[in-house]
């Protein structure tokens, strides 16, 4: 790669600091828009998912982790071969990537980092709600969040009546739920009460019993729900295992296996959302990227800048949107990590504004305490 920091900025930069945003009331905005977040826990390596092509320094520092056979996205970036669906969608302007991006967190703790990627805050454990939950609440979209996991992810907390889907092996009788519900009184039981409210309002299709080990089935049901015009508007998937300190590998290693999981979920969503895919945005979320240099176990350490993988019909075009910081030692964060030049929260804020039909300026204030987050909707999304 022969470009260096700030000599290119893909996408129009003139609108970076907000031109006005006035949502049009049209048939398009009446159509339900879906926002799907896939959490990649452990620290997703942006340079494995979307590697820079021909960077000698990267090759030298990652001798054992080098990828062959990447898909070429453009002259500067490739795509990991396990992310096949993104390549397919790229050709249809339905996949894009934001690179050298992260939440504004430079510590290297998973727990602090994951807390912050979900709360969107600056101080770990300080906020008890997630940016997505607050975004839904601010947009007055209640009871439309769906988590594909047993616990309710922090990301979705902050708005009441979220649902989750991870069916048990057998049915629970409605009568039993109602009976327990009537017994829950007292202020200290608010959370359980509101959760029971949600359970009682679940659609019939969610009252199934299945093997929740099967990610395919879960993604399939999520797609079914999201497709329904009156169904959820937000879904959150949770993947872990990206913390590859050892045996990270290249095309077939431990990181590749995790990317393959992402690929599977997106493939199922794409296939089963059908036309609703056109009104959908899928974005990944992670706590940090990984070090440029491989470590003693042919893995990588906790780093800083990473990438966001995006898919869906609401993307503006296929692109690698980045303000590339470069990989020379002095260009790295603390001399070791890919830098982050785009606050990833700006991407999420813009995505929410598009999917929830809300002014990004309004959301930025309601959700992210008015932090300086440029509106990227015009660069990244269809508005």
């Amino acid at each position, binding site marked *: 790669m022969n470009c260096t920091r700030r000599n290119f900025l893909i996408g129009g930069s003139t609108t970076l600091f907000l031109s006005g945003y006035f949502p049009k009331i049209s048939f398009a905005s009446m159509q339900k828009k879906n926002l799907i977040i896939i959490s990649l826990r452990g620290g997703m390596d942006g340079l494995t998912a979307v590697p820079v092509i021909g960077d000698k320094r990267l090759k030298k520092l990652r001798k054992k982790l080098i990828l062959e056979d990447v898909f070429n996205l453009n002259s500067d970036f490739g795509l990991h071969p396990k992310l096949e669906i993104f390549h397919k969608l790229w050709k249809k302007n339905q996949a894009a990537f934001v690179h050298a991006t992260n939440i504004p967190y430079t510590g290297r703790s998973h727990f602090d980092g994951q807390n912050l990627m979900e709360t969107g805050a600056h101080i770990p454990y300080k906020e008890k709600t997630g940016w997505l939950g607050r975004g839904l609440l601010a947009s007055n979209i209640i009871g439309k969040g769906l988590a594909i996991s047993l616990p309710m992810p922090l990301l979705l907390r902050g708005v009441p009546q979220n649902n989750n889907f991870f069916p048990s092996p057998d049915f629970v009788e409605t009568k039993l739920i109602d009976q327990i519900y009537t017994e829950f009184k007292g202020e200290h039981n608010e959370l359980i009460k509101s959760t029971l409210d949600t359970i009682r309002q679940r659609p019939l299709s969610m009252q199934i019993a299945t093997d929740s080990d099967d990610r395919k089935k879960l993604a399939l049901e999520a797609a079914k729900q999201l497709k329904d015009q009156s169904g959820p508007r937000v879904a959150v998937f949770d993947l872990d295992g990206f913390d590859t300190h*050892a045996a990270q590998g290249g095309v077939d290693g431990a990181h590749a296996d995790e990317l393959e999981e992402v690929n599977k979920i997106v493939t199922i969503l794409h296939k089963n959302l059908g036309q609703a895919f056109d009104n959908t945005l899928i974005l990944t979320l992670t706590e940090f990227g990984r070090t440029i240099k491989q470590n*003693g176990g042919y893995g990588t350490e906790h780093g800083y800048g990473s990438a966001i993988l995006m898919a869906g019909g609401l993307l503006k075009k296929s692109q690698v949107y980045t303000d590339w910081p470069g990989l020379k030692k002095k260009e790295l964060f603390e001399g070791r990590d890919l830098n982050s030049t785009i606050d990833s929260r700006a991407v999420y804020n813009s995505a929410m504004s598009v999917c929830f039909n809300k002014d990004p300026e309004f959301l930025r204030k309601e959700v992210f305490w008015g932090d300086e987050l440029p509106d990227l909707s015009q660069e990244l999304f269809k508005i």
Partner: protein
Amino acid sequence: MSLNFYRRVAFGLSPNEKPDKDPLNWAINQLDIIPDFLWPGTIPTEKDLRKKYGEWVYGDREVLRKKFKNDKHAYRKAKDELRIKTGERYFELNEHAIRHFQTKYSKQPVFERFWLFWGNHFAISEKDFLAEFSTGPYQREIIRPNMVKTFEEMVQSVTTSWCMIHHLDNSESFGPNSKKGMEWGETINENHARELLELHTVSPNAGYTQEDVIQLAYIMTGWAHKWDRKNLETGDIWFDQEMHQKGDKIVLGVKYKNDAKRELAKVIHDLATHPICIKFVSTKLCRHFITDEPTDEMINPVIEAWNKSNGNLIEIHKEVITQAYKYNEITHKFHPPEIWLMQLSRMFDLNIPLSFEKMNYTFKSKPNNRQRQLSWILREIGHSPYRAKQPNGWSDLEVDWVSPELLLRRFWFASVELPMLVKSENRSHDFILACLKNNFEDHANMASLIDNFRFGTSDYDLGQKYGVVCNLPGVLKI
């Protein structure tokens, strides 16, 4: 004093236990000595299981992968056979049985609750084959014996245990200026150092920097498993001078002179006796036993007990219980699924775990469904104890355990699975009433909710009854 105290600090009262005249004393007297394991079946040693771990990874990695590199199908088959032969599918089930047998029958259930607490504080998360072979014995052999010693001694044992070192990759951490580091161009792996600071001792409240993490990682270099071609990573832990970073180190402003293997004990001493560490761990203890957001009034006496006893865990535990007793009537605590299951098992004398005879394993075929039952239930209610997703272990906060599916799983368990675990002699309505009376002040109200089914003893009838009583507000949240 409410009967819920027996669930706050233990697992409730079994049908043949009666409330004590002095519940506080009852609880405090359980903490001085380590109760023996009661499980009559096999209790393998950590070392034995590490050997099995070695046989499994060596067999797979060094033998089968090479032998069947061109035949995926044959490879899969051979691998399944190896799983059976090495007990890869069995030992975790046995560990769950040992654990649940203990919490069900122990004469010192309060001690057992602390055992669960510490095992989760120094959690081993789901990684490699640790849950299959090592996490259970680690809980028994590393955590448990240290519960009557000091916190510092516990941290020392944990930090140099094979299980934690493997879990957090310290064997892959080389001092860049060490002999091997220079020869092989290797460097540190910060994982273990970071978690020692963040999770095990001082927490981020101590304000340590990236440089502190690096310096601590330097101190820790050399603490690794012995590696050889046959045992791979399952050799004993030792201190490899040739991996150790030379020179003085500075952590949190304290200088540690170049002193090889002795550096670690010194830095652990300073971390484990650091006021911020004491506050952090005391808060966690109060959170576990009292309420999600413990106040300074609850935490401070624990800190005092800690300081007065120089971190003696017996004294600390006693003070935590004293505070739990003091605040029992005015605080609420939601219990995570495994503790809830243990309580149901003890209060209603459920048929779990399976008898030790039936848990017996011959290494000739897959463990059967009955042998897998308890572990399966734990997974389905969302709390497989040795498979926390991350090194910070399982959450102790209600908000992490209340979601539509997690609540439904409990309803499902109590109404569908539990009836099959009721012993044949315990199927009468009177039995349930007696258990309720033994454990709940408002047993009369609870009884009225299931009165419609008082004549029923079928699985369905029992499901109707247990489904309700196990999920009432005062049961899910004391």
